[in-house]
């Protein structure tokens, strides 16, 4: 009898041995291997990952590219070379691949630097959102009662705040003083924007995790841990949190594009990153008055913003489907089912009455 060590799957079952022998062991795959296998087959999600990796590389290499490939810095002005006599920028040419913006700056280089801004926001704002959301969501779901009530009401309040207006007020108030607000803690700039985004968005994660924790805490393994004398903290960190990793990863990748768009919106309204920091949102804002006569000023930052948010969304979808195929779209799961059936046919374990039959064929 074969011993199953984990979920039997296709592909890793030993082929039938010589007639009469029965396979001794089926090597199952770990959940992470299963997950990776499914994710890999989602071509669109993989394309998203590839795009994101490329974007990260481009963002990191922006300085090098500016210096050695484009030979233009992000803030270098070429007013008389790249604007016409009425101050409108000129379009793409051999030296300026994406054309110029209104100040005669190389749009290609500025779009690459804009990627840095967006990716920084993706990391810091989302990171902050996750940390706060996890702590409060897990606490609310685990402790329930008064703790849950307080946290849930706070989260309701935060969700109902007029975020844009508050962001404007915060930037106006803290932006004008030399040392920012709170004795230098709240300085205007990329970090302030990250705080604003992160601190206004944590309720989304907190609510989702709260629900998950509430169902998890009733499971038997939690009871067992408690029976063994585990403290609340240990249960939360060692038992519950690891089971939240999957949804956390998925939601993070889905929240990143929202945060990137939020920063773009703030920068579009000139309450985002400081003026000298390239940002796709700010570039779209600058283009808004002249895009009808200078299409490239809006096209390139818009395209990159679109592709980046789309890539993160597709990756997030792919991750979610890979973690839990039940949530996959119907048409997609049919395609996947077809593929899995084909794979199973290839690796099928033959029935005992067939073994002898195949062994007797020459």
């Amino acid at each position, binding site marked *: 009898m074969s011993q199953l060590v984990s979920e039997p799957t296709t592909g890793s079952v030993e082929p039938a041995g010589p007639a009469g022998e029965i396979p001794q062991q089926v090597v199952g795959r770990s959940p992470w291997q299963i997950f990776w296998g499914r994710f890999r087959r989602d071509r669109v999600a993989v394309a998203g990952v590839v795009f994101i990796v490329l974007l990260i590389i481009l963002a990191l290499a922006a300085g090098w590219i500016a210096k050695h490939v484009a030979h233009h810095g992000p*803030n*270098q*002005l070429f*007013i*008389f070379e790249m*604007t016409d*006599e*009425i*101050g*409108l920028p000129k379009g793409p040419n051999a030296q300026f691949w994406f054309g110029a*913006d*209104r*100040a*005669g*700056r190389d749009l290609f280089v500025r779009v690459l630097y804009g990627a840095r801004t967006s990716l920084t926001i993706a990391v810091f704002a989302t990171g902050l959102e996750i940390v706060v959301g996890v702590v409060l969501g897990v606490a609310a779901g685990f402790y329930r009662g008064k703790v849950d009530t307080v946290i849930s009401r706070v989260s309701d309040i935060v969700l109902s705040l007029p975020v844009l207006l508050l962001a404007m007020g915060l930037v*106006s108030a803290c*932006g*004008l003083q*030399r040392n920012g607000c709170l004795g230098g803690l709240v300085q*205007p700039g990329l970090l302030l924007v990250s705080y604003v985004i992160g601190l206004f968005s944590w309720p989304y994660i907190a609510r989702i995790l709260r629900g998950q924790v509430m169902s998890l805490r009733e499971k038997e393994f939690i009871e067992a841990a408690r029976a063994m004398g585990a403290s609340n903290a240990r249960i939360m960190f060692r038992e519950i949190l690891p089971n939240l990793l999957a949804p956390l990863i998925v939601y993070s990748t889905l929240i990143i594009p929202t945060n990137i768009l939020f920063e773009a919106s703030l920068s579009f*309204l*000139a309450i985002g990153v*400081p*003026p*000298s920091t390239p940002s796709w949102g*700010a570039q779209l*804002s*600058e*283009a*808004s*008055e*002249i895009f*009808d*006569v200078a299409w490239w000023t809006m096209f390139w930052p818009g395209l990159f913003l679109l592709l980046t948010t789309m890539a993160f969304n597709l990756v997030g979808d792919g991750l979610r489907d890979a973690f839990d195929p039940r949530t996959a779209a119907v048409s997609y799961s049919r395609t996947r089912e077809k593929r899995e059936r084909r794979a199973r046919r290839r690796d099928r374990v033959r029935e005992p009455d067939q073994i002898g039959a195949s062994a007797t064929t020459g």
Partner: protein
Amino acid sequence: MKRHLTVIAAVAVLTLVAVACGGNEGGGGTSPTPSQALQKGGILQVESDGDVFLGFDPQTEYYQSSFQIFRCCLLRTLLSYNGLDAQHQGTQLFPDLATAMPEVSEDQLTWTFHMKQGLYYAPPLQDVEITSHDIMRALIRTATPAVGASYGFYYSIIEGFDEYSAGKADTITGLETPDDYTLIVHLNEPAGHLPFMFAMPTTAPLPPNPDDPRAVLGIAEGHDTDFGHYLVASGPYMWEGTGNLDFSLPVKDQPQITGWQPNKLWTIVRNPSWDPSTDELRKAYIDGITVAITPGGANQVMEKKVIANESDVVMENGIAPSILRQFNTDPALKNRIFINPGTSNYYYTMNLGTPPFDDLHLRRAIQFAIDKAGLLRVSGGSATGTIATHFVNDVLMTLSDGTNVMEGYDPYATPDNLGADSPEGLASAKAEMAQSVYDTDQDGICDAPECKDVLTLGSNDPSAAAGHALLQQNMEAIGITLDLKELGGATIYSKIVAPANKIPFTLSAGWMMDWPDAYTYMLPIAYGPSILDNGNSNYSMIGATPEQMKSYGYSITDVPSMDDKIDACVPLTGDDRINCFAEADKYLTEDIASIVTYVFSNTIQIVSERVQNFTYSAFDQQMAYDQIALAGGGA
């Protein structure tokens, strides 16, 4: 008057056709049509992206668009302008309600006006004659603190004006009305500009209330902050529905004018009481004006309506780049665009009380470093205006024989006006910087910490971003880095007009004349006694006393002054006055150097096909609604 930040944004959008002229060539100035061809009739359709700021109250309104509506149409004053450009005496004064220019005593302290008789107000006051008491009443309202007159400070030279304001007297002792048609003005000191002051809307006659003759402020009694809704006209036009005003009712029950629907629509119609035989200045061909307001509307949208002849003109001066490109390329449109020199300037101000701007050599280094040619280019090119090399607009520096006193004056000249973007310009800037205390190693690049992250306020309008980037590049070339905050116009304004905020560097500043006189630049911007705790326009703090500086919390208390230079010019008139202010401007530019003026702007207007006799009014810098006609009488 204040050239505000929203207006600045609109002008920054200006772009250009190569002709920037004040004459009749190629679309500038006036396009006179033989008067036989001009017919009466038609309603002018105007588009605007915002309503007036200050309520159409003659005492508080301080902007071009409201000055235009008052002058052309609603209000007559003792003296006024002819609605033409500078070439056709558009900056000269003419009698309007007065019979002639005022008589002035030998010592220049007493001015006497005589008024025309038999002039009446619009309905419902069509039986109320316009008298000298009404001019006095307007000045009393100007001096009333609760009203908050915007340029009342000019009238402090009238004896007793400030005392009345302070509540120490119950009348302005310096004003006399010996009879209904005579006004005598006594001054504290000689002032050559007094005639200009009586062409301003704040001196337009304020009618008495026939139902309450003792009301000090006449029909404005009880309407300190909303008088614009109860305005009774004295000009060729009036607000529609004025006839329904009823001043016999208690103030809170009085109906408002229906013609002014704020943020929606202005409807202006003919004033039946206006007698054209008494008014040589206004032609009044059109029957009325409607102004459709789209709050925050995009200029392009309104301009496209004008091109399509769905509207006649846009109230704001300036056109979007894409629209201008259309006018450049379409020959059919060439006759419908008019470019004229305005009297505004745009400048950066450095606060003399905040390091590193307390050092004259550093300020001069900045003057050399600014690439004005680049700034002009990114603002729309050479049709937007001309490069400025001193503070007061050249239009006001022109003598009676047409000579520009400041012709060729450029103490901070750099090749092609490129500033630090040219090697010689950079060298000049560094040579100045090397003499600054903030350049410790004297290499021409500022190395003191005061030069790092200098707080700077600029407009967040997308069209201003390119200019900011250029400025930062120029400043960095001499070692100064800016901590630039791009904010909305109203936010910036609220910060910079309070000296206690100590804003070091302000970018979005512009000024326009109040009347055609350099005094209206110098007084609010460079005169010590003009400094206010709030609503201040002297952002540099020029002429502030040490006590003032201390009271605002500055550690630097000793700042340069030019009060004496300005005082010396006030009594003068004519060419002497212009020459005197030219010297003051040179002193400001070279010896104080806290203001970097980079452009004298033009105005650009486009009109529909049916607008005839386009006339540029030099006083309010708009199309003169009182001079234009509509083809076929608007049929």
